[in-house]
């Protein structure tokens, strides 16, 4: 900026020094400012306005706090789902004879008395069970039956005695 211009500007400022706005100018100043600002904003397309509003809304909050809420809600939902599955889909205990198979563990000579049972009931011998009766290699509850052919013997001998 050269010296001429500086002098000119100084002179103009000096002349403007006594100029005053019309009465009531500052009373309406804020309202007029907002009106003009709104007019400027409304010149943009609607989608741009929405994006800006959303961005302003998000950044008005703490972003880290906002991200923790969905995670917490998801965790609670997953826990609730797991608990409800365990409660409502637990298998009902089967009331069949083989559930009493722990008798297999009774050693020989421990119980020499006859019990109240059918004369054709299954008897237990001093054999070691290879299979856990409560589990099966082909256990399933689908619509098709279990086609039986074992891959291990039901029992085998543990000692040479006769």
């Amino acid at each position, binding site marked *: 900026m050269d010296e001429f211009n500086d002098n000119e500007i100084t002179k103009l400022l000096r002349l403007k020094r006594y100029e005053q706005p019309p009465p009531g100018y500052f009373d309406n100043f804020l309202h007029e400012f907002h009106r003009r600002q709104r007019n400027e904003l409304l010149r943009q397309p609607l989608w741009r306005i929405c994006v800006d509003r959303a961005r302003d809304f998000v950044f008005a909050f703490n972003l880290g706090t906002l991200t923790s809420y969905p995670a917490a809600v998801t965790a609670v939902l997953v826990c609730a789902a797991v608990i409800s599955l365990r409660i409502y889909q637990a298998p009902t205990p089967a009331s069949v*004879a083989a559930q009493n198979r722990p008798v297999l563990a009774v050693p020989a000579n421990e119980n020499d008395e006859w019990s109240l049972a059918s004369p054709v*009931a*299954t008897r*237990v*011998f001093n054999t070691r069970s290879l299979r856990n009766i409560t589990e099966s290699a082909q256990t399933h509850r689908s619509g098709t039956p279990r086609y039986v*052919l*074992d891959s291990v013997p039901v029992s085998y001998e543990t000692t*040479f*005695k006769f």
Partner: protein
Amino acid sequence: MRRLSSSRALGPSLATFASSFAALASLCAQQTPDSQNTIAFSREVKDVFERCGKAVVKIEATDQHGDLSGTGFFVDPTGTLYTAFSVGGEAENIKVEFKGRKYPARQLMADVRSGIALLKADLASPTLPIGNSEQLEIATPVVTIGYPLDLAETPSFGMIAGFDRKCFGNYFPTKHLRVNLQPQRGEGGAPVLNLKGEVVGILLYSFENNSCYALPIEAAEKLRSDYVRFGEPRYGWIGTNVQEASAPVEGSRAVTTEVIKGTPAAEAGLEPGDVVLQIGRTKVHEPEDTLEASFFLTAGDAVPITIVRGNEKMTFQIQADLYPASKTRLAAPPPLNRAIPLNLEASAPERTP
């Protein structure tokens, strides 16, 4: 000219026909023995299948794992049938599919030691003749008939591959037949037949890929005999434990290490250190032989036992007692449709009318 051309065309075709005929004839001549053997085998298997298939049935039941399906076969005309323990041993609502109809069946006996079950359906049934598995040899051809998966009655052809007392270090209760044929799921309890159509074993479980194990029919018949006599299996024992001796005596390495007090063996006078030579009809060479003999002992029956004590050979007549573990019954509640027998012990009060 035309005739000449036709005769010219006929010449090569005749030569081709003659050469083809000669090749076919020579091929037939080369393949005749094998083809005849194959045809003969096929005919025999087909014959066994047609004769015996009628007595083989599909068994459906329910156990704690859900529905199951296996195979069984009739051994008497009143509907008694053998199957595997895994099929009929722990199951309920047993049904036998025979001639397109399903008949209810009940369990007569189930034996976890041998791995078989005896069932009964109230119907007039064809029967399979009982063979002799002791006459089997390695490579004897055998046939099984079973119900694999949800398929129809199916024959399988194989051969005897061995007579095993143990597998992977585990001892069977008695010698088992190892059969080289490829069983499929659903064939548990199927009969193993010789080419005469006689049952020589009961298919119990598969072994690796192309083999299976079968219980010899003599072992099953021992249990059926027990059932007929006593209403239950009655394995016998005399009360000794046996181990392998460091040196054989009279060809036997089975030496008694313990004679349990109060048992028939103790009362008869057997002592630790006696070398066992024979139990009943079974000659003993190794301790494993006692398993075979023990399986066929029946409680209450007298059995001759030959031993060596020092330089003296002795034979005892010993009445076998009930196998100790047999006295512990399975504490299973009887099914609802069965009568509950009362156990009238000495302390029970007598009922008076």
